[in-house]
């Protein structure tokens, strides 16, 4: 009979199956991004990018703010997962790895929040 607790037996024994979720979300966001980024880049290169009024109007126009918001959310999510894998693979210090993984999440959430707030401000302003 073992005196070890069932938790002690299980810890460090194998995967918790979170990896599959990570893997699937990475792929699903990739499919969405293949559509959203191509639309966004094709639109951007045709815009007069130096013209503030035209650019602001384009961002706030019709379905564009919804598509840009979806793009921002999907891209930061996909990017967070991708950067996480790179940190996990190449950063070997135990503490530096944990710190970088947390910074990675904070940075992506911050970028998403700034971008979404900007789109919201442009939409609200377009109502006059």
């Amino acid at each position, binding site marked *: 009979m073992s005196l070890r607790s069932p938790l002690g037996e299980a810890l460090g024994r194998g995967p918790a199956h979170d990896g599959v979720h990570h893997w699937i979300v990475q792929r699903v966001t990739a499919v969405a991004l293949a559509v959203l980024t191509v639309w966004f880049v*094709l639109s951007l290169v045709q815009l007069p990018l130096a013209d503030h009024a035209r650019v602001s109007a384009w961002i706030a126009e019709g379905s564009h703010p919804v598509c840009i918001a979806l793009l921002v959310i999907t891209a930061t999510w996909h990017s967070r997962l991708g950067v996480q894998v790179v940190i996990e693979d190449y950063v070997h210090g135990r503490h530096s790895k944990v710190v970088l993984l947390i910074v990675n999440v904070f940075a*992506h959430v911050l970028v998403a929040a700034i971008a979404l707030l900007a789109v919201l401000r442009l939409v609200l302003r377009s109502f006059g």
Partner: protein
Amino acid sequence: MRPRPLSPHVSVYRFQYTMIGSFTHRMTGIGLAFGLIVLAWWLAAAAGGAAAYGDASAILGSVPGKVLLALWLLAFCYHLFNGIRHLAWDRIFGFEKREARRSFRVVILAALVLFVALAWFLFFRGTGVAP
């Protein structure tokens, strides 16, 4: 506890040129992650008004700004096509060595063609980045 099995390190593999495709996918992904910061900054500048947008536009329209934009455009084109290649692999399509080598060359070619077309629109048609 005995050590858990680790994924073999890069240095134990014999070099094959399709490995470049894998490294490049990661490097372009990291580059594009930094590009998201610029996207958020650009949107915030547009929301901040004409003066803030003018400053952002001048930075992006400068020579270093244009070089970075071109690199991001190239990274996007590669990551897009190689990402589609990865999605095909996930469906166990094109995973044989010969097919993977051929699709790598297709990805490089498609990325370059798309990059040239987009860069032409962005930089040389006169409507794009500030002069």
